[in-house]
Every structure is written in structure tokens, then in C-alpha cells.
């Protein structure tokens, strides 16, 4: 990693996700690559859900942050492939989600099983109970499903696997 690249990574890791402000766009896996080529910094970002309204905000914040850190000249481009998946969320990102009260995505296979009609087991981020129930597979933002805990009775968001 070049000095410029590592500077860029640290600047980008300060940018919060507009909808979940405890987690950075780097932790979320939205920043795909940062490469210095012939003195130009090339940053590739990827949308989470196609229709996620935060995508444009994130792109703007990335541009603003790089400008503020005087890292010009740079290029920010959106890439679609390989498509974003929840497995791109870092371990520290998952931990921060849980602390914030959002159940982090279980491993991929859990939701695939659920898509086949089997029940998945999601742990309540509030009390740790595994006795939880999905209320709706669509939640407050495109990336979340809506659950409730049968033990502490609290509703909570689950960051669903994609």
C-alpha cells in the first residue's frame, strides 16, 4: 500500500454511513478498492441495495472527505461487480451494529435457508435471547428486516444477508 493509499483509507474510515451512523463506509464494505495510479487516487465504491437512497449521499461524502484531506487528484467510481454482500461487512462493523441495537447479518447460509422456507435463528441484540421472530423481511431501510424478541419483547432491526 502506498502512503497516499493508506492516507485515503484512514480518511474514508471516518465517513459514517448516513443511515447507521455508528459504522463507517469502510466497515460496511462499500469502499471496494483504493489504488494510486500514476499519481491519481482511484476509489471504487459499490452500492449496497440498488435502490438504497444512501448511495448518492455516500458518494458525495467520499468526494468531500477526499477533497478536505487534500488528496486530489482523485477519481471516485461506482462498481457493480462483484455485487455487494453482507459478508463484506468487517468483523468490527458487525460488532458495532450489535452495540447499536441492530442484529448483524448471520452467515449467508442462514438467510438462504430462510429463503427456502426454513426458520432462521437470529439473536436479540438487546437481551441475547435466541427466541426471536421475524415480523417482516422488509424493515426500516432496504438492508434490514424487522424482528421482535419473544423474551424481552423489544422489536429490533436485523441487517439481512444479501
Amino acid at each position, binding site marked *: 500500500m502506498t502512503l497516499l493509499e493508506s492516507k485515503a483509507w484512514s480518511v474514508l474510515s471516518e465517513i459514517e454511513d448516513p443511515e447507521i451512523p455508528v459504522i463507517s463506509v469502510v466497515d460496511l464494505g462499500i469502499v471496494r478498492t483504493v489504488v494510486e495510479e500514476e499519481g491519481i487516487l482511484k476509489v471504487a465504491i459499490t452500492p449496497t441495495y440498488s435502490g438504497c437512497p444512501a448511495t448518492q449521499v455516500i458518494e458525495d461524502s467520499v468526494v468531500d472527505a477526499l477533497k478536505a484531506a487534500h488528496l486530489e487528484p482523485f477519481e471516485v467510481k461506482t462498481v457493480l461487480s462483484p455485487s*455487494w454482500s453482507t459478508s463484506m461487512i468487517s468483523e468490527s462493523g458487525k460488532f458495532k451494529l450489535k452495540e447499536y441495537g441492530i442484529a448483524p447479518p448471520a452467515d449467508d447460509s442462514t438467510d438462504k435457508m430462510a429463503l427456502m422456507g426454513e426458520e432462521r435463528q437470529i439473536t436479540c441484540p438487546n437481551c441475547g435471547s435466541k427466541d426471536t421472530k421475524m415480523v417482516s423481511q422488509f424493515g426500516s431501510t432496504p438492508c434490514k428486516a424487522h424482528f421482535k424478541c419473544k423474551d424481552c419483547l423489544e422489536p429490533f432491526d436485523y441487517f439481512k444477508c444479501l
Partner: protein
Amino acid sequence: MLLLAWSVKGIKMNDNSNRLNVALHLGDNALILGHRISEWCGHGPVLEQDIAMTNIALDLIGQAKMYFDYAAEIEGQGHDHDYFAYRRDVLDFKNLLLCEIPNGDFAYTIARQFYFDQWHFLLLTELSNSEDERLKEIAQKSLKEVTYHRRWSSEWVVRLGDGTPESKEKMQRAIDDTWYYSGEAFIPVDYENGILPIGLKDQWMKNVKEVIEEATLKMPTDEWMQEGGKTGNHTEHLGFILAEMQYLPRAYPDATW
């Protein structure tokens, strides 16, 4: 030599115009159906389903944007995705008629979504291996979302079909009435040739039948289908959708905030 150059160029342009039309067809499906479902925002039968429908609408409109970005690149006239959404008229739209028919009651919305999702899922599964790199990328991305859509609409067909006598009757009526719009997707038009997969109908019938039977409903059998949307011959409903959707950008061109 001159003639040869012309014909080679002719083929290439033709190929590009087919790809442009395919990108618009796929983008228009997503945009128009996305707009339709978004009309439920604030009117859903319960809060969770209101949210589910607005999420599905968002996904679809996001997918439309990806197809329109691609269309803009193929076209090469300096247009952007908003141009294709807001500056074209009814005859230019290439969406399936299924996408533009009105929401009706909740059962109609579910039936329309169910037929569409079942097809969309199969289409994107195939396109995920397309030789067209861009369509492949968009399909791989969208397929993950559409997997959730298909599950949602299929579950509702079963829940309403195998529900109370009233919900069953309404679901059956919706399944029957929207049926005539479900087959257009499988009738190829010229521009699809070699770009979109063919022969999805058998698998679609099988999947649809499975859900309809699980819902204890009767599978429609009529083979006559409405068509025309893919080539710009729309129902009277599309104009009203565009009037609402395009009003602002047409009244205040290039407005920003």
C-alpha cells in the same frame, strides 16, 4: 469497399440499437412497476406491508437506474438516467403491460407482483451468465433483491389464497384477471434476439402452479395473452403514470435542490 464498410457499420448499429432497446425494456419494467408499488406508500394494509412495498419499489427504481445508465452509454448522446425516466413519452416505453396495470385491491397488487417476480427471478438467473458483461453485473446485483421480492409475493398468494373465504375469493379473482398480462414476457420481440434468454415459460408455469396449488387456488388455463407493451403499444394507464411521474421535471426542467 464502400458498400462493405456500410454493411458492417449497419450490423454494428443494429446490434447496438437492440442492446439499447433491451436495456430500456428492462429499465422500464423496473421503473413502471416500481412506481406502481410506490403508490401504496402510506396506504398499505398494515405498517409492515406498507414498508415492504416501499422497499420493493425502491429496489426496482434502483435497478431501473442501472439499466438507464447502461442505455445512456450505449446511446452515446450524452443523456443520463433521468432523461430516460422523465423525457420519453408513452410510445417510447417498452415495459410489459403487466407492470402498468393499476394496483386494484391488495390481492391484485400481489397477483401482479407474483407473476412478475416469478418471471423476473428466472430472467435474472439466466442473465447472471450473460455474455453482455454489463447486463450480467446488473442481473447479479438485482437477483439478490428479487429473491426477496419473489418470496414475499409468493407467501402472500398462499396466505390470502389459503385464508378466509373472502381473501380466497379476492385472491382467485386477482389471479384470474391479471393472468392475461402474465404471458407477454414470454413472447419475444425482435430486439431481444440473442440478448435475452428464451424458453423460460415452462419453468415459470411450473413454479407459478406450485404456489397457486399450495394456496388452494385454481390455476388459470387460458392461453390467449395481452401483448404490445414491449413495442410501445400500451394500455391507457401508462399515460397517467407518466403524467404524475414526469410532471415536475417537465414543468421545471433540470430543477435541482
